[in-house]
């Protein structure tokens, strides 16, 4: 593992799960839970004769940023696409649960607990969702994560980070949507149905999954920023993500409600206005929506430098 200082300017996109977990937190504060030395690997992969990892492709733990206890989940795309099985799923679920329990314990013990001393959860997504080798257990774990996200509401903010190679798809696509705040890089991708599956369902003329530019402008960070589906778009370094987390972690928990996309009747009303727009527009391409948002030259938005994009882009308002 490189030194903490060297991790900071490392590409978030290229970083493995542990480097992201360690680099996001203050130096030397990370404690891994159910880590590789505990050797909890998937018994189901073993039965199938597949290679296992002693962390099951998911790094869980706790650290600090400033005064804030930060519970971290970091998914490893290099291991079976960051997929969720019984062990990794349990680690994800229980990390959030531990954060909620720790919150409850701290507020009881310290009546003067400040906002920045309250725990947050950070999830660095890199996953296609359910691991097919143990699909039923993976599916059930997703439901548990959604349950914990709701239980964390108004107590422990949950922050999603999306900027890794695999993106965030399948069931984890709605897990991310259900968090309080989403930070992406322009290389991050977020969706429900992966590009190959849409092509399979709708035909290549409708969606060509080998067209990388098309895939990125349908699910990539810049598109999600325009749609309001992520709150912040940051540079592709661990330091940039870390800085975004630090800013968010200092906010009072009530502020997170305003950052959410879903989770209240009002938010659903707002999303439905977007759906009505989708029905009206029947966009053939995400660029149609960018133009609708008030961007006169949507084609140029794809390749301009990030700073220029952030300074000039109009975000969709419905």
């Amino acid at each position: 593992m490189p030194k903490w200082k060297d991790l900071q300017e490392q590409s978030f996109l290229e970083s493995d799960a542990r480097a992201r977990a360690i680099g996001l937190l203050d130096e030397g504060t990370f404690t891994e839970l159910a880590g590789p030395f505990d050797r909890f690997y998937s018994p189901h992969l073993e039965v199938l004769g597949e290679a296992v990892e002693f962390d099951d492709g998911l790094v869980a733990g706790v650290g600090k940023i400033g005064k804030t206890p930060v519970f971290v989940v970091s998914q490893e795309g290099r291991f079976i696409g960051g997929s969720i099985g019984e062990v990794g799923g349990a680690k994800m679920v229980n990390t959030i649960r531990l954060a909620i329990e720790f919150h409850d314990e701290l507020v009881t013990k310290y009546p003067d607990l400040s906002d920045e001393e309250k725990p947050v959860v950070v999830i660095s997504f890199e996953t296609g969702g359910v691991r097919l080798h143990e699909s039923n257990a993976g599916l059930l774990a997703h439901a548990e994560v959604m349950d914990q996200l709701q239980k964390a509401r108004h107590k422990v903010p949950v922050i999603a980070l999306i900027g890794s190679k695999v993106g965030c798809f399948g069931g984890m696509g709605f897990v991310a949507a259900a968090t309080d705040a989403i930070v992406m890089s322009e290389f991050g991708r977020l969706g429900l149905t992966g590009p190959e599956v849409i092509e399979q369902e709708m035909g290549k003329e409708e969606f060509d999954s080998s067209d990388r530019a098309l895939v990125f402008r349908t699910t990539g960070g810049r598109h999600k920023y325009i749609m309001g589906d992520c709150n912040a778009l940051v540079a592709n370094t661990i330091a940039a993500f870390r800085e975004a987390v630090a800013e968010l972690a200092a906010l009072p928990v009530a502020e997170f409600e305003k950052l959410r996309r879903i989770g209240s009747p009002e938010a659903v009303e707002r999303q439905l206005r977007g759906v009505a727009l989708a029905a009206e527009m029947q966009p053939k391409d995400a660029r149609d929506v960018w133009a609708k948002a008030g961007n006169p030259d949507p084609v140029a938005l794809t390749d301009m430098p990030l700073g220029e994009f952030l300074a000039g882009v109009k975000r969709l308002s419905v």
Partner: protein
Amino acid sequence: MEATETMMGRGRDAIDMIVDAGSFTEGTIGASTFDDPEFGPGAVIGTASLEGDTVTIIASDANAFNEKFPVVYAGIIGMEEGYKMAQAVYASLAADADKPAEEKRPLVLIVDTPGNGPGKVEEIFGMNKATGAYQLALAEARLAGHPIVAMVIGRAISGAFLCHGLQADHIVSLDANFGTMIHVMPLTSVSRIIRKDLETLQELSKANPVFAAGPRFFYALGGVEELVGELDGMRPAIARHIKTIRDAKAAGHQDELGPWGRGELGAERQGRTVRPEVIKLMNQEFAAVAEKYAPSR
């Protein structure tokens, strides 16, 4: 097992078989009305009574086609459907906002859905938000005291089952003789994708329910509380589960219900035995260092 009549594609029939005769009013929940027939036609929502109690019904209509979103048919939950289902939950919460927890109306989810809308427009606008919104609403209602029972009558497939079913307090399923499908993918597709031959997988699934398709495997994993072998067993089973759920909530045993409760059930039924070990170890490891992460005073 002998195959019997299937309920697949018959969500509306199932409502009639479950609720008190003639009691279902579609499109009205408390003070909310849903009167646009073109809005989320794949989602059937409304109010009925079950053994005299007011309940919210949420189901899918496999015969509906959403003209605005052509990927939505055959019971698929599209963006409008997902948000409409979420609104049905919020309307139930609002209707009983002033009632004590033990009087909050039950929600009955009738599950027969093959998937979420798999389209380009859906991805551009964010199908993930619609399915996520409905799940959060269900979890909120469950934690607020509303008993939620999911009744699987046909297809409970992957993300659509997560969306519509897996956030319930308890899940009841028609048994395999009704052709009930609960899975992420059929074993044939799993076999192709993970490159293991079908015979091997079929053999392995006899001992390990973790990847095979069907309600009995989910039962073994604690993913379904009860299997029902008769159509006229649905109604009494749902009523019974509502009572059990109410009692558990009244006793403060929320952790025996919902997804977490099914996790415990999975261990009890020996279907998911590593999960509790991982959780236990993490709890111990965190307890050992927790002081380091508490504020210094």
